[in-house]
């Protein structure tokens, strides 16, 4: 049993859930519900397979527990797994650089934007069928206005939901990637070292 890994997954799943509370305290019109998933995929450096499994587990657990309050959220679990996969494949190899690089360099922001936009595009594609088939294209909040706009301009329902997602998701996911990277930079090195980060033996301690 890998205690460190269990605790990391639990911490990241809890972060996914708690950030919802923080967003409520801020009274912000956004849903930052995958920061823990992204952070988990960036933290584990020992193996990409483990990074994906752990981050997908964090996403699934947080969606399952969130479903006890909001019964519609678990239907977006697939989006959580897709985000975990993208961050593991594209973001994980850049994690050390994102952690060390100065925030004053344009390269840092280009990397964040690239990762956020890519993740947002994938999330939009995976979410669109759920939005269409389950919710009739409308999930509430600002996305309803976007879907209505695209429908009014003559697009079909699936295309409207997809275009709405492609418009909104990259912004949301870029914000989430940025927050996750800021948290990664704040995380103590002694904790990161347990997951194969630079300067550690490169394996997950039991």
């Amino acid at each position, binding site marked *: 049993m890998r205690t460190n890994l269990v605790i990391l997954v639990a911490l990241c799943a809890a972060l996914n859930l*708690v950030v919802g509370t923080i967003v409520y305290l801020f009274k912000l019109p956004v849903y930052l519900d995958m920061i823990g998933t992204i952070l988990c995929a960036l933290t584990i450096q020992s193996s990409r397979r483990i990074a994906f499994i752990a981050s997908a587990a964090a996403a699934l657990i947080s969606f399952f527990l969130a479903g006890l309050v909001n019964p519609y959220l678990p239907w977006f679990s697939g989006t959580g797994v897709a985000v975990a996969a993208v961050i593991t494949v594209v973001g994980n190899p850049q994690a050390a650089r994102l952690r060390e690089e100065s925030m004053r360099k344009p390269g840092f922001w280009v990397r964040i934007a690239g990762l956020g936009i890519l993740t947002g595009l994938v999330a939009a594609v995976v979410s669109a069928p759920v939005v269409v088939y389950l919710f009739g294209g409308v999930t509430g909040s600002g996305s309803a206005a976007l879907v209505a706009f695209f429908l009014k301009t003559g697009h079909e329902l699936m295309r409207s939901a997809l275009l709405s997602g492609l418009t909104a998701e990259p912004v949301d996911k870029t914000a989430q990637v940025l927050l996750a990277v800021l948290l990664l930079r704040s995380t103590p090195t002694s904790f990161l070292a347990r997951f194969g980060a630079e300067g550690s033996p490169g394996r997950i301690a039991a």
Partner: protein
Amino acid sequence: MSSNGLVLFLVIAVASLFVPSRSVVPILVLALGSAFTLALGRRGVVVARRALLSVAPLAIFLTLVWVVIVGRAPEVVFFRSTRPASPWLSVAAITSRLFLLALLTFGVIEAGSRIRPPFVFGLALPREARIVLLATTSLVGAMRLGAERAHTALVSANILTGRRSWRNLAHGWLLVRTTWVAAVGIAVERLDTKWKCEDLPNAAAAALPPARGLNARDVIWTSLAGLCLCGAVAALLR
């Protein structure tokens, strides 16, 4: 009902809602959901109210989009392609199924709230998954308290405000960072000391209730849900 019986009932009942057939199955599921809610007694009223409240904002947005702005029915209504119909009818169809989904989910959660320890820990899941669930629920409580404490401190220090503001947008990440670093600090310290001495994973696994099989009530409710599912599939194949 047992934890596993509740989840099995929910999965089968919800699955019958998603079979894309034009049949009386939604009415059957409504009857099933109503019976299940009535079986909860007075708490059933709370469940129905929660389900209504959860679906109300979606109903408003659906009406605004499809009836007021677009003025036609969506091409897909709950997993089924539709011919042109009244937007009101389509909105009612989507909303009523979402209401049933919420009613069944909240009903199961309410029924599970009687189970001690909490019913999610009694689910027949792999050992690791149950331990992670236990650790997550434990950490969520600690992190929420930490977030509220940090929020109070940051508002007192005039870095954040208690209202919607640009300052919250600019400095809000400090609250997320404070909460995360505090939680990681606790985890790192305990991983090396307390949890190591307590042999955390094994102790947690031992503390969890054993995953029990289905009881008579589980079988009755699951069979009723199964009948709804069979009816939906039969209507689809006909």
